């Protein structure tokens, strides 16, 4: 019962060739971006005196080798969550760059509950997760009234809130929550009841992965199948149009940012509630989950269902470059460089699109 056939097929204004040209970049550009990044990586390796084949081999083994795959899945969990934290507000045209802060407050909230709330064992785990989700959501939600009332762009406020939030958690683990015995700035080990149960045969892969996958499914469904998802896209396409059509832009902004912060907070909890079951200062920010997630979200474009794929790719880059550093002494920051190249190539995708649009406009009559 498709609707198209019963319309009397009015004369097409979009020729098949145009439609192809509009569609082509959607598939070609992301692949191209990855290939360009890999090529840049090869050049950098050559410049550093490393055979790129050996380099990429070390990277893939570092991420997907038998000994590392378990840890890679844990990193994938965090990166996938952070890609959702960026992708949800991005759907309505807002950029959440404050992922680090939201991760950290999530992690610290989970730590406080795990260490200081005397709850019976079966309640402790959900309480930790809930606290993390709420903390992340609150921090991110702060940016909503800032943009809808004070017109401070989300991209600025999330970042400016992130730095102090990270600093605050760093203070907390160094002083009030510190594990006095160790020389490392970290909290004591959480009680067993606050450990996320690992999947059979693994150490790092645990319930967190399932939770994040659940969130992913929810996002995909809401995005494609509900009025809410439609409204997000309408705001992203044209804010004034959406408001005119009855969408409450302030409410939606609050909801989108709170959800983003909630996922990021969840990711923070998942990381600290996995081996070694502590909040270690820097352990949430140093691996660069936030930016890997942003890169994955940009690569997936407006298709949330693709996020697991792109998040997996950046997990390989991220974890693999740590392995590369270990095996062949090539700094792991190469992973960040490659992410940046992917983002830059993707940004230039618009060039192809605007060129197409310009051609289309030129054909249209301009009479008035």
């Amino acid at each position, binding site marked *: 019962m498709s609707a198209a056939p019963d319309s009397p097929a009015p004369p097409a204004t979009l020729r098949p060739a145009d439609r192809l040209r509009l569609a082509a970049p959607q598939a070609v550009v992301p692949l191209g971006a990855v290939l360009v990044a890999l090529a840049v990586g090869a050049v950098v390796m050559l410049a*550093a005196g490393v055979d790129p084949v050996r380099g990429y081999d070390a990277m893939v083994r570092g991420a997907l080798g038998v000994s590392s795959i378990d840890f890679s899945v844990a990193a994938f969990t965090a990166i996938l969550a952070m890609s959702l934290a960026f992708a949800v507000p991005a759907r309505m045209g807002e950029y959440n760059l404050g992922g680090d802060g939201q991760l950290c407050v999530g992690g610290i909230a989970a730590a406080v509950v795990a260490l200081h709330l005397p709850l019976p064992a079966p309640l402790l785990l959900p309480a930790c997760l809930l606290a993390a989700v709420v903390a992340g959501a609150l921090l991110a939600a702060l940016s909503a009234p800032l943009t809808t009332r004070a017109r401070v762009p989300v991209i600025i406020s999330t970042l400016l809130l992130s730095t102090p939030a990270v*600093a605050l958690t760093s203070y907390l683990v160094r002083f009030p929550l510190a594990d006095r015995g160790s020389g490392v700035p970290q909290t004591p080990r959480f009680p067993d009841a606050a450990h996320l149960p690992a999947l059979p045969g693994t150490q790092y892969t645990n319930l967190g992965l399932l939770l994040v996958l659940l969130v992913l499914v929810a996002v995909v469904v809401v995005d494609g199948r509900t009025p809410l998802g439609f409204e997000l896209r309408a705001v992203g396409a044209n804010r004034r149009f959406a408001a005119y059509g009855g969408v409450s832009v302030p409410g939606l902004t609050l909801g989108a940012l709170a959800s983003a912060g909630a996922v990021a907070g969840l990711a923070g909890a998942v990381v600290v509630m996995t081996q070694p079951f502590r909040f270690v200062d820097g352990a949430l920010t140093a691996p660069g989950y936030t930016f890997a997630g942003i890169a994955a979200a940009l690569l997936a474009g407006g298709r949330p269902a693709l996020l697991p794929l792109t998040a997996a790719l950046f997990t390989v880059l991220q974890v693999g470059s740590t392995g590369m550093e270990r095996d062949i002494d090539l700094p792991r920051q190469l992973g960040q*460089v490659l992410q940046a190249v992917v983002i830059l190539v993707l940004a230039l995708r618009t060039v192809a699109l605007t060129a197409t649009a310009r051609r289309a406009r030129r054909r249209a009559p301009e009479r008035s």
Partner: protein
Amino acid sequence: MLSSVLTLSFVAAVLTSTAPVALAALGGALCGRAGVFNIALEGQVLWACFAAVVVAAWTGSVWLGVLAAVVTTTLLASVLAVGSVRWHADPIIVAVGVNLLALGLTGFLLRSLLGASGTYAPPGLPGLPDLALLRGVPVLGPLLSGQSVLVPVALLLPLAAAWWLARTPAGLRLRGVGDHPAAAASLGVPVTRYQQATVHVAGALCGLAGAQLALGNVTAFTENMTAGRGWVAVAAVMLAVNRPVGVLLACLLFGAAEAWGFRLQGIGLPQQLTDAAPYLVTLVVLVVVRARRSSRQGAPA
């Protein structure tokens, strides 16, 4: 506590903290005036810090370090200039890419090229010369004699830029380009060229900012040493609505918060807390000013 705020040495510390942010923010303000949203300041300043330290260390010449920072950061700005101005790519995503590229590349090169991890401060790394000749001059002496020569530059350039915008044909044209590009183009002003040139100038200013931060405020390169200063600069630009002198004032506010933070650290407050203060102060002021401004304009419900 209050008396310490008023001492000249405190004001001197404020100026030190202000200088790098003010240089970067001036670049951002000029871009704003030209109608380009430049939030790649953070990455550009970070890159400039790295270039300045590496070249100064290799050549032993602080001025070659400054030159390298300015030249290479201007080149880095081309990514934004070409990508978002000429090719109309999303300036925000390009900037996110540039910022991440700078972070990754400096970290990568720090280890692979310099074999350092975390911090690079080889013995003999020259710092920017201070204004020793002002020693003994009343007021100016205590304020500036301990400062690098780039500090007065950072304080005076915004004034010069304000004059240039208001009083020269090119400045007038730039203002028009930012306000209504189509109108400027219809009168024959090459809009894209003006915007690209401005982005490059902002790159050069970020180059100076990085040189001051890494060879003036400290003498070292540390991974991610900008630590959000580029974003504070962006906030200052918004706060002052692209007016150079206003940007300088906004940056002085940040500088004061940072310098006060150092003071509080001196009396035992944890560094993590005092580090956070300038960002919160900046954000709070930004929110208050913007909120009042938009309520004055009578925003629709």
